[in-house]
C-alpha cells in the first residue's frame, strides 16, 4: 500500500484512546477506586463515539479498504504499520466499541477489593485497565491490514485476557476459595496455552508467508494473488492456510479445540466472559474471513468440506452439551460454541448470504450473548451460585430480571424479530444453497437451542420460589442501563438490519470475488 494515509489517523486514534485510558486508569491511586471506574467508563464511551465516526466516515460503496494508514515499521522485513477497514471490520469495531461500556458498567463492582491488603493494592484499577487494553488491541486487530501487525496483536491480546481470567474470578464459586483459585488459574492457563499453541503455529505460517510473498501487507499479497503475479505451490498454500486456520479455529473456538472456552467463561466474571466470547473470539472468525479466504483462496476451497463438517459438529455438539450443563455460565459457553459453529459454517459456505450472515452473526451473537450473560451475571451475583439447580421461581420475585433474561435467551435461540434470527437464517440459507445436507443438519441446531434456553429459563426462573431466592432484589438502575440498550438493539437489528447489511455486503462481495465464487443460481432461473 502506498504512503498515502488519511489526513486524520482515525483508526489509530480510536485504538489509542482506550490504550491511553488503560494506562491512566491503572495509574489511579488505590483510594480513588470509583474515579478509576468512571474514567474507564468515560474512555470507553469516548471510544464508542470515535467508532461512530469510523462508521460515518466509511462509505460502503467506496474503496475496499478505507481510512487506511500506512507507516514503515520494520523496514528490513517489510513489516508496516498498516491499517484499513472494510465493511466487516467496521461492523466489528463498532460492536467492540459498543459492548465495552456495557461490560465496564456491568463489572462495576466485580473487582472491588474484598480486603485492603496494602496501600498499593488496587485490583479495581487493574481490572478496568486490562479491559480497556483488550479493547484497544481488538480494535486495532480488526483494522490491521498487515499480517505481522495482526499477528502481534492477536498474540498480545492473550496477556490482558490471561490476567482478567486468572486474576478476577467469579466470586460465586462452589467450594473453598483455594479450590476456586486453583480452578481459576487452571482455566486461565488453559486459555493461554491453547491460544499460544495456535498462535505459534500461526507464527510459523506467517513467516512462511513472508518467505513466499516477500512482505506482510495483506492488500499487496491479496492483489498479487488475485492478479496471479504471486504463484503459490498448492502444498505450500495449503500448509500456510492450515497454519493460519488452526490459530483462528482455536480462538473461534471450533470443535475439537473448544474446551478452553467453558472453563474460561465459567471461571471468569460475567463481564469478562462476555469480553471473551463476544469480543475477543470474534477476532478469530473475523480473521478467517479476512486472512484465510483472501490469502489462500484455493486452499480455503480445498479445506471447505472438512471445515463445514467441523462447524456442523460444533453446532450440534455445543448445543447438546449446553443441554447437559449444570452451570449457567458453562451453558452459555457451550451455546456460544454452537453459535461459532454457525459463524464458521457461514464463512466457508462461500455464498454471499452465508458470509454476510456470518458477519451479522458475529455482531448479533456479541450483543445477544452480552445480554444473556450479563443478566446471568447479575443473577449469579445475587444468589452467589452458578448452579442452575440453586435457582427456581426467580420470575416471581424479580420479574424484570427474569424478563430480560428471557429476552436474552430468546435471542440466543434466534427468535424472529430479534437480531440473531436474521443472521442465523442467512447462514442457514447460504449453507443450504451449496451444501443442502449440512444446512438441514444445522437446522436441528435451532431446536436444540430452544431446548437448552428454555430448560435454563424453566429451571431458574419458573416453578415454586426457592427459599434462597425469596429475598432476591430485582434489577437495579445500573443493571437496567446495561441491559435495556442491548435488548433495544436486539429488537432494532432484528427488524431493521439493513444498515448493517449495507455496510457488510460490499466487503462480502469482495471476499467472494477473492475466492472466485458465485452464488449458486436458483433452479428455475438455471432452467431458463
Amino acid at each position, binding site marked *: 500500500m502506498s504512503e498515502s494515509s488519511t489526513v486524520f489517523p482515525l483508526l489509530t486514534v480510536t485504538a489509542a484512546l482506550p490504550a491511553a485510558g488503560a494506562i491512566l486508569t491503572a495509574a489511579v491511586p488505590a483510594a480513588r477506586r470509583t474515579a478509576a471506574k468512571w474514567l474507564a467508563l468515560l474512555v470507553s464511551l469516548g471510544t464508542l463515539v470515535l467508532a461512530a465516526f469510523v462508521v460515518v466516515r466509511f462509505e460502503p460503496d467506496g474503496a475496499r479498504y478505507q481510512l487506511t494508514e500506512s507507516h514503515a515499521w520494520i523496514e528490513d522485513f517489510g513489516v508496516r504499520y498498516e491499517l484499513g477497514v472494510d465493511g466487516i471490520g467496521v461492523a466489528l469495531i463498532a460492536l467492540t466499541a459498543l459492548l465495552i461500556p456495557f461490560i465496564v458498567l456491568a463489572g462495576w463492582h466485580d473487582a472491588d477489593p474484598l480486603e485492603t491488603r496494602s496501600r498499593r493494592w488496587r485490583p479495581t484499577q487493574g481490572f478496568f485497565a486490562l479491559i480497556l487494553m483488550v479493547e484497544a488491541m481488538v480494535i486495532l486487530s480488526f483494522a490491521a491490514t498487515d499480517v505481522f501487525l495482526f499477528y502481534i496483536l492477536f498474540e498480545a491480546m492473550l496477556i490482558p485476557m490471561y490476567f482478567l481470567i486468572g486474576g478476577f474470578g467469579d466470586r460465586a464459586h462452589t467450594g473453598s476459595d483455594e479450590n476456586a483459585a486453583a480452578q481459576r488459574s487452571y482455566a486461565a492457563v*488453559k486459555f493461554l496455552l*491453547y491460544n499460544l499453541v495456535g498462535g505459534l503455529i500461526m507464527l510459523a505460517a506467517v513467516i512462511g508467508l513472508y518467505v513466499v510473498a516477500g512482505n506482510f501487507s495483506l492488500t499487496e499479497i491479496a492483489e498479487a494473488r488475485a492478479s496471479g503475479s504471486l504463484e503459490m505451490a498448492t502444498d505450500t498454500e495449503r500448509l500456510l492456510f492450515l497454519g493460519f486456520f488452526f490459530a483462528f479455529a482455536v480462538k473461534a473456538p471450533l470443535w475439537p479445540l*473448544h*474446551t478452553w472456552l467453558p472453563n474460561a467463561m465459567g471461571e471468569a466474571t460475567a463481564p469478562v466472559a462476555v469480553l471473551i466470547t463476544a469480543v475477543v473470539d470474534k477476532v478469530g472468525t473475523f480473521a478467517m474471513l479476512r486472512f484465510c479466504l483472501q490469502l489462500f483462496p484455493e486452499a480455503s476451497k480445498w479445506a471447505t468440506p472438512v471445515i463445514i463438517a467441523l462447524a456442523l459438529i460444533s453446532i450440534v*455438539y455445543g448445543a*447438546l*452439551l449446553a*443441554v*447437559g*450443563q449444570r452451570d449457567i455460565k458453562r451453558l452459555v459457553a457451550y451455546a456460544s460454541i454452537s453459535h461459532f459453529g454457525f459463524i464458521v459454517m457461514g464463512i466457508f459456505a462461500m455464498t*454471499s*448470504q452465508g458470509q*454476510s*450472515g456470518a458477519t451479522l452473526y458475529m455482531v448479533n451473537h456479541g450483543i445477544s450473548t452480552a445480554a444473556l450473560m450479563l443478566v446471568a451475571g447479575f443473577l449469579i451475583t445475587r444468589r452467589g451460585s452458578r448452579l442452575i439447580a440453586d435457582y427456581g*421461581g426467580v*420470575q*416471581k420475585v424479580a420479574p424484570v430480571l427474569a424478563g430480560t433474561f428471557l429476552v436474552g435467551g*430468546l435471542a440466543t435461540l434466534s*427468535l*424472529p*424479530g430479534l437480531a440473531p*434470527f*436474521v443472521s442465523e*437464517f*442467512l447462514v*442457514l*440459507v447460504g449453507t*443450504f*444453497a451449496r451444501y*443442502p445436507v449440512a*444446512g438441514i443438519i444445522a*437446522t*436441528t441446531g*435451532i*431446536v436444540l437451542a*430452544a431446548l437448552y434456553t*428454555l*430448560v435454563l429459563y*424453566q429451571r431458574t*426462573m*419458573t*416453578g*415454586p*420460589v426457592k427459599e434462597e431466592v425469596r429475598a432476591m432484589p430485582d434489577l437495579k438502575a445500573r443493571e437496567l442501563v446495561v441491559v435495556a440498550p442491548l435488548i433495544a438493539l436486539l429488537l432494532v437489528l432484528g*427488524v*431493521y*438490519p*439493513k444498515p448493517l*447489511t*449495507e455496510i457488510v*455486503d460490499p466487503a462480502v*462481495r469482495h471476499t467472494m470475488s477473492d475466492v472466485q465464487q458465485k*452464488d*449458486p*443460481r*436458483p*433452479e*428455475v*432461473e438455471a*432452467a431458463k
Partner: protein
Amino acid sequence: MENLIALLVAAPLLGAAVLLCGGRRLDRAGHRLGTLLAAASFVIGAVLFFDMLGRGAEERALHQHLFSWVPVESFRADIAFQLDQLSMTFVLLITGVGTLIHVYSIGYMEHDERRRRFFGYLNLFLAAMLLLVLADNYLLLYFGWEGVGLASYLLIGFWQHKPSAATAAKKAFLVNRVGDMGLSIAIMLMFTTFGTFAFGPVLAAAGETGEGMLTAIGLMLLLAACGKSAQVPLQSWLGDAMEGPTPVSALIHAATMVTAGVYLITRSGAIFNAAPDAQLAVVVVGAVTLLFGAIVGCAKDDIKKALAGSTMSQIGYMILAAGLGPIGYAFAIMHLVTHGFFKAGLFLGAGSVMHGMNDEVDMRKYGGLRKYMPVTFVTFGLGYLAIIGFPGLSGFWSKDKIIEAAFAKGGTEGWILGAVTLLGAGITAYYMTRVMIMTFFGEKRWQPAPDADAVPSAEPAAEDHAGRMPHPHESPKSMTVPMILLAFGSVFAGGLFSLNSAFVHWLEPVTAFEHGHPPIGAAAVTASTVVVLLIGVGIAYAQYGRKPVPVVAPRGSLLTRAARRDLLQDDFNHVVLVRGGEHLTRSLVYMDHTLVDGVVNGTAASVGGLSGRLRKLQNGFARSYAVSMFGGTAVLIAATLLMRGV
C-alpha cells in the same frame, strides 16, 4: 387504504409494548387499553373488509410494502403485507374472536395480580398472528409463525410458578420448533429453487420446477403445519397446553393459532396442487389426527383436555380438506371459521364453568350445572350442537361439505376418507355429548376442592375457595357477553356462509375452487352424516345419561386407558426423546471432559515427563557441558564441510 394494513398489526403491537414495558402504574388501566387496541384492530379490519367488498373479486388483494427487511444480494426479504380474501377472513376471525376474548378475560383474570402482563401477551399474540396471516412472503410469515409460538409459550406458562405450566409451555415451544424446522427448510428450498420466497413469485412459478422438489417443499410445509396445528405426530403439546388460562386455550389453542397450519397449506395451495404425493401425506395426516383427536377426546375427564382433543380432530378435518386440493380449500377455511366460533364458545363456557367450580376441571366432579349457570349452559349447548354438526348450525354446513369433498376425492381414497370423516363425525357427537351430559346434566357430583397448593394457587379465586364446597354461580357480564356473541356466531355463521355458497365464491380468487362430486349424491352424504351423528349421541346418552357417572373414573378398557394417556404417544416421546436425549447429553458431557480434554491434558503431562527425563542429562558439571559444546562444534564443522563437499 392499503396503508391501514400495517395499522392492523401495529395496534396490538403497540398495546403489547406499552403493557409489557409500562410497569406497575398501568396495572389498573392495562386491561382496558389492551382490549381497546384489539377492538381498534378489529375495526380497522372491518373497514378494510367493507372496502374490499366494494371492489371486484379480482382486484381485491391489497399490498403494502413497508421496508426491506434482510436484503443480501439475491436474498430479499421484505416487511410487506398482502391482504387478500384469505387473509381478510383470518383478520376478521382473529381480531373479532380476539376482541371478544379480551373482554372475557377482563372478568376471568380479574383477581390475577399480573393481569396487565396477561393482556400484554394477548396483544402480542394478536400482533404476531396478524403478521402471520398478512405476510406476503414466507420469511415474514415465519416471523409471525414464531411470534405466535412465543406468545403461546408465554401464555401457556402464564402461571409460571406451576411446574406443570412451565413444562407445558416449554413442551409446546419445543414441539413447535420441530415444526418450524420444517418451515425454515421449506423456505431454504424455495430460495434455492425459485430464488425467492415471496408468495406471488413462488406460487406463480410452482409449476416450473420438478415435482420432486415441490413434494419436498410440500412435506416440509406439512411438517410445519403439524407442529403448529397439533397434528399427528406433533400433536402432543396441545393437551398440555391446556395448563394455560382458559381464555388462552379458547383464543390460541382453539380458534386461531392452531389453525395457522391450515392457513399455511391453503396459502401454499399452488405447491400442493402440483405435488400429489405431498397432498396425499396431508390428507393422511389429517385423517389420522381426526380420529386420534376424537378418540382422545372421548377418554379425557378433564373438560379442557376433552375439548383440546376435539380441537385436534376438528383441525384434522380442516387439514384433510386442505389436502383435498381445490375442492377442499374453501371448506377447510370455512370450517376453520365456524370452528373458531363454536370452539371458542365452548372453551369460554368451560372457563365459565371452572370459574364457578373453583377451577375444578374434572367433569366427573361436575353435573347438574344447567340450573346454576343458565347462560353458560345455553351458550355451551349451542356450541355443542354446532360442533357435532346439528343440521342448520354452523358446524353442520362446514363439516358436511368437508365430508362431501372427502368422498368427492374419488377412488378408494375417496371412500376411505369419506368413511373416516363420517366416523369422525360420529365420535365427535359421542364425546361432545359426553361432555355435555357430564357437565350440565345428571346429579351433582361436586367435591370440595383440594387445598390451595395442589391447585394452581394463582388461578383466580382459587385461594379463597380452597378447601370449601363449590357454589356454582353465573359468571359476570364481561364473561357471558362474549359467550353469547360467539354462540350467535356458532349458530348462524355457517348458514350465512353457505347462502348460495357466498364463502366459496369469496375465497375462490385465492384458492381456486372446483366443485367436488361425491360418488353418492350430496344429499346421501348429508343424510348419512346426520345418522352417524345421532348414533354417536345415542351411545353417549346410553353410557352417561342413563346411569349415574362414577366420580372416580373406572379403569376402563385398554383403549380407554391408552386414550387417557394420549394413546401412549406422549410416553413414547418421553422414553425415546427425553430419556434418550438426557443419556446422550450426559454421555457427551462426560466425553467432552475425558476425551477431548483428556487428550490435551495427556499431552501436557507427557511433555512434562519428557522434560523431567531430559533434566537428568544436565548434571551440572561444567566439563560435561563443555563436551557437548565441543561435540556440537565438531558436528557443525562436519556439516559445513559436507555442505561444501556436496
